[in-house]
């Protein structure tokens, strides 16, 4: 992985062997570009690139593509998230071309939360192709310079291709195999689901390293700092695919309510510290949900500043 595929900042950071640090930003529930720009301020200089979520949890928001364009204009590098729920292959390819033309260089290919979780559960879903095939599609467009039908693309989109991985979903034994398939499909980097169960993640990474997957792909460990014990409880109960150990909830509950946010950040910092040393982990993806203003502090205390 020496020659660059996309020339994105994230790709450069990773290929140079730096420990990557990426952030996340949800577009507004409206056309409030100003609100988005406020969030950008906190992320600028603290992370290598920022994921722009795509109608996350199936709640309608400003389009991720528009969010990415605003980010590029603001001098921040976006990671364009795309879900298979809302677009067929035509819309996907055209949005990929559009994103590239607007300066987007990273993409994250996702299936997407089912619409029943969102605010328009009556909607028809698409799922023309799945996330595995979306990875392969972006790769084909980039490496072969062709559309899915084989037609030539006039200026192919050179994307650094990302994929997600939830090491905590079932069946656990199959997760590493599914990750391997994503890498074979063309994923250059992986951002994992939020990690809370460190024991299970260590076990998972051991399997990844045993299979040599970390040498074929950069794996960024997902970290979400808990704001309080209530948030941990909520995520544990209501967010699909979350594995939050009781010990973590207990630790947050163990401190005074006022200090729970600080405790949450401490836990995240301890995790980041361990990830820095964990074999096979190439970086951290920080998902500070509606807590973007804490990112500079977390980055500072995690010792990942200045960014390369």
């Amino acid at each position, binding site marked *: 992985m020496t020659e660059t595929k996309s020339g994105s900042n994230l790709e450069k950071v990773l290929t140079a062997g730096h420990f990557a640090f990426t952030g996340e930003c949800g577009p507004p529930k409206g056309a409030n570009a100003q609100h988005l720009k406020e969030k950008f301020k906190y992320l600028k200089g603290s992370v290598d690139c920022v994921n722009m979520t795509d109608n996350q949890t199936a709640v309608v928001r400003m389009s991720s593509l528009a969010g990415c364009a605003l980010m590029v204009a603001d001098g921040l590098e976006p990671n364009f998230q795309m879900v*298979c*729920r809302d677009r067929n*292959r035509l819309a996907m390819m055209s949005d990929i071309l559009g994103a590239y033309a607007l300066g987007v260089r990273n993409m994250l290919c996702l*299936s*997407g*939360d*089912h619409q*029943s*979780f969102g605010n328009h559960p009556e909607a028809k*879903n698409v*799922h*023309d*192709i*799945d*996330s*595995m*095939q979306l990875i*392969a*599609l972006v790769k084909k467009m980039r490496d072969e310079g062709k559309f*899915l039908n084989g037609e030539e693309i006039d200026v192919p989109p050179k994307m650094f291709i990302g994929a*997600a*991985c*939830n090491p905590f*979903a*079932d*069946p656990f*034994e*199959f997760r590493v*195999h*599914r990750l*391997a*398939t994503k890498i*074979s*499909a063309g994923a250059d980097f992986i951002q994992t*689901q939020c990690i809370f169960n460190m024991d299970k993640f260590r076990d998972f990474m051991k399997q990844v390293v045993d299979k040599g997957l970390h040498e074929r792909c950069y794996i960024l460990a997902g970290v979400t700092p808990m704001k309080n014990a209530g948030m941990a409880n909520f995520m544990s109960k209501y967010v*699909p*695919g979350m594995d939050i150990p009781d010990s973590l909830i207990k630790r947050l509950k163990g401190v005074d309510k006022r200090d729970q946010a600080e405790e949450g950040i401490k836990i995240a910092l301890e995790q980041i510290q361990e990830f820095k040393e964990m074999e096979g982990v190439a970086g951290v993806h920080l998902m500070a949900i509606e807590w973007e203003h804490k990112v500079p502090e977390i980055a500072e205390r995690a010792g990942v500043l200045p960014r390369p």
Partner: protein
Amino acid sequence: MIVADRKSLEEILGMVADREKILILGCKGCVTVCNVGGLKEAEILASTVRIARKKEGKPVEVAHRVLERQCDNEYVTQLADTVADYDAVVSMACGVGPQFLSEMYPDQVFFPAVNTTFFGGAVQHGVWEERCAGCGACGIHLFGGLCPIARCAKSLLHGPCGGSANGICEVHKDTACIWDAIVKKKMDTGHLEDLVAVKPFKDWRTARDGGPRRSIREELVKGNI
């Protein structure tokens, strides 16, 4: 078979509110097997409509009858002599029935009494489940005999998604994650390698996306063989 659910009485009664002579028409095909639109159900619905209208003080004449199949013109023609006697016909067949009827008898109004839901079967007495999405390009054998197009909420060809927990789909807590079942079956039979390659992009032209479908058997078009 095709599975259907009876519409609410409120909806059915609303459809025929201003009609005075109605025929409730059952079908001996799938809807009889799934206990929703056979002779028995037609008879009960006819009685129910009469009771409801008597209660409202707007008595109605309701007859009931069942055809061998409403998806076959050979049987739909059997209605020719009597269809004009009614000012509405309520079909208890799947969505195919009221259409075959409407096509053959353009002067009559046909109301659907059921909501056609899926292709499936009974997993226990009184419980039916979807098994097929009619995509027109069957690849069940690739997935251990379990169809992810019909049975995965996201129709994933490379599952399970991150929301699968303890073999249960994230969308409904009473729905099994079919991908969990596929993976476990492949593991148990030592064929996990079947799931590691990226599958070809599905060609949806054979499904409804390609437009209304038609199946032609040339040898039968010419005559019986």
